[in-house]
């Protein structure tokens, strides 16, 4: 009998289908790997299993019992525990207090038996071979130690199913083996582990079976030993490129941006050498956390580089603040549109001109007529759907907000436009409008650096694709060379696919 079995799970958010039929089961004493591209639906699936999201359809069975109305409390009491990249513990409480929160129940008036607490913490920590003083405040522990506390806490809650989401992402190399030892130990005790990771090596070292998730669907479940890496990658990306991209050939002009062995120690970037010419769209692919946004932030002066060189039109420059980057003709439309792309409280007009206030004013006095003119022209050019340019940007839909964010940067007439996930979470219509706009801009000689987690988009829109992995450039593929498999192989660090 399986510990956990899900079948036919579907879930959509605001019309976007995140999961569309997920089925798999987890046996006692099994490590079950779950793999998939960015956005394949892994995180959503975890949230459905832990009861944070209610599925639209499909069923979950735990220990053979169907769970009708799941909730975080219910799933926990049924023995499901999730362990995330970043431990979610109370830093000011001690190890034993944190662990106690996992299993102690009862009212607020219940007396605390400190000695029992400590003993229980010791026992649970012992079970996973973690040696630490239960009286230490968790905030003083290292990241790997905190992870051990998380695991001990979930065991204290009598977890039978462990969901681990990229547990090694923030661990140093030598701690990974220790974590594996614990996972294997738990496996021998009959715990079922659902293990999500992008690191294929880990999966081959640890997992018994693997389930591949693609576009919100389970495409295959196989014994880990029977599936070769190239096949695994093919299963992850094997998607038809159905959307038609309006990409046109542009003869590239002069080099606009060049980086030489660029690095930034604070954000873990090293040895990045790229160049972009006028009229060129350089795609930047890679897994979440590979350092793509970090690179964009370095190029925009948000986290200044510590190593290497940045050359703009052949001139070495130092970019220490965004305003310097703006002066050099760089524009950056960030990923987190809802938070930092537009200012929700300001009107569309004010948002459009925010980056050109200096150019728009004489002696500090704004030319309001000119502002309206500019805002209107962009609303028209980008087909922003709005009753007027005086309404607050916060009242617009996501796609229209993204267009306003774009307007602001196009108004600066940049030489280099950095777009971070330009079409994430917006509807299909707005998406293709933005794609068409990108092509127009490239034709007019703008250099565009586009970060995209959507492989078809990266392949369809880019002249060349740089693939990042672990803060470095894993390779650059020309449009002709680039295939989903090759990009994915570079992103996962599986060298055979990387011909370039």
């Amino acid at each position, binding site marked *: 009998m399986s510990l956990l079995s899900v079948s036919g799970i579907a879930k959509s958010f605001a019309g976007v289908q995140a999961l569309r039929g997920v089925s798999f089961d987890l046996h006692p004493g099994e490590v079950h790997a779950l793999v998939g591209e960015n956005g394949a639906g892994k995180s959503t699936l975890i949230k459905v299993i832990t009861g944070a999201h209610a599925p639209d359809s499909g069923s979950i069975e735990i220990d053979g019992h169907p769970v009708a109305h799941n909730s975080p409390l219910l799933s926990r009491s049924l023995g499901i525990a999730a362990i995330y990249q970043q431990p979610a513990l109370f830093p000011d409480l001690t190890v034993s207090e944190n662990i106690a929160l996992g299993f102690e129940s009862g009212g607020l008036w219940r007396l605390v038996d400190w000695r029992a607490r400590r003993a229980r913490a010791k026992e649970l920590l012992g079970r996973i071979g973690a040696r630490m003083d239960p009286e230490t405040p968790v905030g003083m522990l290292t990241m790997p130690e905190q992870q051990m506390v998380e695991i001990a806490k979930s065991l204290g809650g009598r977890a039978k199913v462990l969901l681990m989401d990229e547990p090694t992402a923030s661990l140093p190399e030598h701690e990974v083996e220790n974590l594996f030892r614990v996972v294997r130990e738990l496996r021998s005790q009959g715990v079922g582990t659902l293990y999500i990771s992008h690191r294929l090596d880990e999966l081959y070292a640890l997992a018994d079976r693997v389930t591949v998730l693609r576009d919100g669907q389970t495409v295959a479940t196989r014994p880990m030993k029977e599936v070769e890496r190239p096949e695994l990658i093919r299963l992850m990306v094997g998607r038809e490129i159905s959307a038609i991209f309006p990409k046109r050939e542009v003869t590239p002009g002069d080099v606009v941006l060049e980086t030489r062995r660029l690095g930034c120690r604070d954000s873990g970037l090293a040895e990045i050498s790229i160049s972009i010419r006028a009229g060129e769209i350089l795609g930047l692919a890679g897994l979440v956390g590979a350092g793509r946004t970090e690179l964009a932030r370095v190029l925009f002066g948000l986290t200044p580089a510590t190593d290497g060189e940045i050359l703009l039109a052949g001139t070495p420059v130092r970019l220490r603040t965004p305003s310097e980057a703006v002066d050099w003709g760089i524009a950056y439309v960030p990923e987190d549109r809802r938070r930092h792309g537009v200012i929700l409280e300001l009107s569309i007009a*004010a948002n459009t001109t*925010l980056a050109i206030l*200096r150019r728009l004013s004489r002696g500090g006095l704004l030319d309001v007529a000119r502002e309206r003119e500019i805002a209107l022209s962009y609303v028209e050019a980008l087909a922003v759907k709005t009753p007027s340019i005086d309404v607050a940007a916060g009242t617009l839909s996501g796609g229209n907000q993204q267009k306003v964010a774009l307007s602001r940067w196009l108004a600066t007439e940049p030489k280099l436009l950095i777009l971070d996930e330009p079409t994430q979470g917006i509807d299909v219509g707005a998406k293709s409008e933005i794609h068409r706009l990108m092509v127009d801009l490239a034709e007019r000689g703008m250099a565009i650096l586009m970060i995209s987690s959507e492989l078809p988009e990266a392949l369809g829109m880019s002249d060349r694709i740089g693939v990042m992995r672990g803060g470095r450039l894993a390779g650059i593929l020309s449009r002709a060379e680039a295939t989903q498999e090759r990009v994915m192989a570079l992103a996962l660090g599986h060298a055979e696919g990387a011909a370039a």
Partner: protein
Amino acid sequence: MIRRYLREISVAAATVALLLLLAVAKPQFFSGQNLRNILVTQSYVLVVAIGMTMVILARQIDISVGSHFAICGVVASLLARAGVPLPLMIAGTLASGAVLGGINGLLVAGFRLPSIVVTLATMVTLEQGIRWITGGEPVRNAPTFQWLSLGQSAGEWLVLATAAAVLVLFAWGLRRLQAGRAVYATGSDPEAARLAGIRPDRVIFGVFVVMGMLTALAAILNGIQSTQGDPTSGQGLGLQAIAAVVVGGTAISGGRGTLIGTFVGFVLLGVIGPALIFLQVEASWEKAIQGAIILVAVASDALNLRQRRNVGASLAAH
């Protein structure tokens, strides 16, 4: 249009209702001298509230204005007594306000300390400091200082005209100057403002300096109405100013609000005290009613915001 200025209009309506009540019950309230008295003696609060509006729009707070006010008042008195020429006396007082505000600005913007803690600390420190320097004794004003030797009537008009000019100037500036836009952007979302090439730290430093200078101006406008510079004046001034700003509809979370709102908020809160006296209600009710008004204002903000969120979400879903 009405939706956009709903808050300003509703506060103004409440004020008008209060005035109508007075007009019926106590028409003598509207004697020219009485109204002018109220406005003249309160105008320094408006000037401080204008500065406070900018501070709050930038998502900061300044509770130290009371002690700044006291210090600037004493500085102005001392300068006048020392026989400093009038323009220099005014410049010197404004400069001292700018320095005091600059200290707050430096601590908040430069060292990234929370403004509520910084200004609490400077408030307490400066309060003690001035008590220590002056020994808690008022500074007797030079005769030339009172009404700036203009005589009471002209002096009163000067006070009113100055406050009105400051209001118009800053309302215009917030809308039309690059700096005004930067204040709104910084208060709405400092990170987004930074991404747009604005320097939020400079904006925040700037609003504290302006706050300090307006406080100094307010101290002059108040000081010239009396015969002595009082080192204990300004107590509760910070809260009075914040109340006017909040009642006027400026969001305490920054980025949203107008000076018109602050003005109507100031009028409503300022009229209540004298109105109660005229209506022969016990004076102690003044604070309670002001508190209730602030609560109503904040609660209606919260409701309004929830409504707007819902509208935004349903629009965004399309």
